[in-house]
């Protein structure tokens, strides 16, 4: 057989996080901990399917009016309506005025990509996307695939393990006028560092001054504080200020629908007539990528959002997940005090959401893994979701040892 025409195709670099999962699997130590995981785990370290989700799924499968027919390119209309309401709030003027163009998309990634493609085609401003340093690794890849230039703004401050607010504002003010500003709506990934309400106001002011187009990535609404409205604060602040903006909404974590790929993309536009046109273009963009979105997960999500009883049950379970994570933060902090780990670990408590940027260096992380069988990413990030009460003491010991000796 002739040599492959694809001989020159290089092997793509291995996924860093996947490599960690594989090493974890291969490790035989009974002490091993997987803190690299990006999905929620219960106290026993098991994945969770929420009760509200199971019940909604059962109803979907038992409903004789449900079938497998193609959804429209924009997905389930009720899903779109309820997702937008969840994000922007019941009282949102933008929604009331019909100024949102909302389509169902493939979780956060799919919504970011369709949004990015839409902007690359229709946005008259500079095709420049500003993302925080650091950000979710896939942000850069997505926007670059859309043909946009990606620039970074300062965000995480290593010495405080907190927000470099001054640096962030400076960089926003130095941005090209009309550029696109990507903001994590809450529970910043990977650092867990979020602006305060006052700081959000400052960010809004700076964005307005430079006429930046804001693009929110909301993957943790309800998952950060346990309260959907509270976690929607930044989105609502910006939207209520009258801005046009984009929102990529994911239900992967807060509904635990990860593999079902459930999300919504909204563009808030200046007027409702323009919003209709924008919606038509979002649909065409989707059509050329995947035709129409997957049905199963969105059917589940719609039922939960629409049924008062399921919605209430979901909110309780959501708070339960958020609370467990908060508890882990507190317990880890306690344990670090108890073992006398050097340094100020207050950031463990201040940081928000699934992830925490511990501040551990690469050498310290290597020690965590090689000596203590604790798997985490080299940037010092740990997933609080992968922690359990019984292991906090062990983890604290590992961190103390790593900080003292590496």
């Amino acid at each position, binding site marked *: 057989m002739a*040599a*492959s*025409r*694809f001989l*020159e*195709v*290089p*092997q*793509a670099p291995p996924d860093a996080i996947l490599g960690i999962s594989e090493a974890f699997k291969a490790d035989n130590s009974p002490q091993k901990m997987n803190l690299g995981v990006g999905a929620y785990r219960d106290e026993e370290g098991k*994945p*969770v*399917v929420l009760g509200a989700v*199971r019940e909604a799924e059962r109803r979907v499968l038992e409903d004789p009016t449900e079938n*497998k027919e*193609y959804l429209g390119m924009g997905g389930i209309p009720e899903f779109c309506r309820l997702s937008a309401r969840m994000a922007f709030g019941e*009282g*949102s003027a933008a929604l009331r*005025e019909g100024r949102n163009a909302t389509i169902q998309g*493939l979780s956060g*990634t*799919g919504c970011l*990509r369709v949004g990015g493609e839409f902007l690359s085609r*229709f*946005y*008259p401003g500079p095709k420049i996307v500003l993302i925080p340093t650091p950000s979710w690794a*896939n942000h850069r890849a997505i926007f670059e*695939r859309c043909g946009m230039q990606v620039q970074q703004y300062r965000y995480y401050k290593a010495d405080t393990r907190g927000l470099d607010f001054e640096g962030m504002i400076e960089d926003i003010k130095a941005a090209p006028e009309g550029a696109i500003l990507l903001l994590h709506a809450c529970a910043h990934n990977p650092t867990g560092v979020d602006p*305060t*309400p006052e700081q959000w*106001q400052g960010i809004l*002011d700076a964005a*307005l001054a430079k006429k930046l187009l804001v693009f929110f990535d909301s993957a943790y609404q309800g998952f950060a504080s346990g309260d959907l*409205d509270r976690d929607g604060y930044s989105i609502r602040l910006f939207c*209520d*200020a*009258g*801005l*046009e903006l984009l929102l990529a909404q994911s239900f992967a974590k807060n509904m635990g*629908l990860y*593999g*079902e*790929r459930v999300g919504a993309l909204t*563009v808030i536009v*200046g*007027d409702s007539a*323009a919003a209709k046109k*924008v919606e*038509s*273009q979002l649909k*065409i963009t989707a*059509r*050329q*990528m*995947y*035709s*129409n979105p*997957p*049905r*199963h*997960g969105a059917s589940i999500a719609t039922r939960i959002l629409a049924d008062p009883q399921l919605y209430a049950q979901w909110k309780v379970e959501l708070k339960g997940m958020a609370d467990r994570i908060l508890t882990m933060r507190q317990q880890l902090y306690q344990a670090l005090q108890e073992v006398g780990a050097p340094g100020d670990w207050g950031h463990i408590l201040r940081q928000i959401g699934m992830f925490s940027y511990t501040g551990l260096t690469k050498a310290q992380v290597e020690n965590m893994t090689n000596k203590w069988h604790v798997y985490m990413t080299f940037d010092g990030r740990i997933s609080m979701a992968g922690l359990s009460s019984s292991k906090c003491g062990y983890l604290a010991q590992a961190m103390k040892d790593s900080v003292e000796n590496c």
Partner: protein
Amino acid sequence: MSLAAAKGTRPQQAACCGAARRWRRRAPVAVHAAAQVQTASRLDAVEQAPPDPILGVSEAFKKDTSPDKLNLGVGAYRTEELQPYVLKVVRKAEERMLAKDENKEYLPIEGLASFRQATVELLLGADSPAIQEGRVAVLQSLSGTGSLRVGAEFIAKFMPGTVAYISRPTWGNHKNIFADAGVEWREYSYFDPESIGLDFEGMLADLQAAPDGSVVLLHGCAHNPTGVDPTKEQWARIADVLQAKGHLPFFDVAYQGFATGSLEEDAFAPRYFVERGLEFAVAQSYSKNLGLYAERVGAMSFVLSEAGAAQRVLSQMKRIARAIYSNPPVHGARIVAEVVGSEEMFGEWKGEMEMMAGRIKGVRQDLYDALVEINPDKDWSFVLKQIGMFTFTGMTPQQCDNMTNKWHVYMTKDGRLSLAGLSSAKAAYLARAIDDSVRNY
């Protein structure tokens, strides 16, 4: 946008405790916002997109209130009662899945392993040397469209400047997918309106004239929209030209099972290409044959001459997929794995596939008979010769408009009718509509 509205969305203020101070400080925000002038809309110049040539038809159909309306636009199977059909074997699979209480964790980027194995075996046969030798890169993806998109992006990146040749005519979305991925497309002759058959010599001539190493998009079976497929002998001659020119064949396999009713028989062309030692790309969809339309289940595969290349190609497809949707939806893939993984269920599936294809063949005959009855002088034999879900009528856009405006028959403007949406009971009505349109417009 009004201040009052903005104020109205302020959350409740807590009566006491530290949190209250933070919330209360939000009151000035509304005032602050008023000081900022709302920037002029930058999105108001966005134009309304034209309706999608295929999916737009369904949207128009939904709005029609006529009791006679017929949706023969999108290729979605309907029962004789013109109801959507969820395969019994799919329902069974879903019940089993629910009972297993499986989690909803992310699939790996390349998708569900059991699904990928089942899918490549369905296409090439479990004993295919390409599979045995690890020479196939298989990526679960978003049905046919999503798979084509990943394949097109791969071509744009690793075969830059290569032109994709697509048949004239082809499925309405092919051109957009390739163009959007940055791949230039050109057409090769395919359909001969005179014979209402394959313009075989024209096709070969065009493929011969194309630059060496072009991509050639081929429909695996049941060509959409024409229903005209090459014979086995013709496939051999097509393979000759592809081999001589070093072209990369790219199969679109959306109707495996709908051409002859047999899943195995309909896989002839890709299996033959493996025998011939050709490398090729293939997009597969389970939308029609397993009725999984909305679950978006399919695969993008590359059959290569060596395992090492397959590994590397898969790694690059994963990278492309990661920036479009990260990882594929789990539900539909699990259904496929259940059905194909159980001998009993696979057998049931084959039965239902034969039933669906059989109903379409039956309705073809009914339509033909009705057309001959109304107008015995015209040659309607193309209806019987065409293969798969569709009949390609040769009607002009004006005639198609008449079909819709006068007869409430919804179809695509290229003259394609989806027989999957026709019942025996409505065959005579459709025949009258076709005859009227062809005669008078």
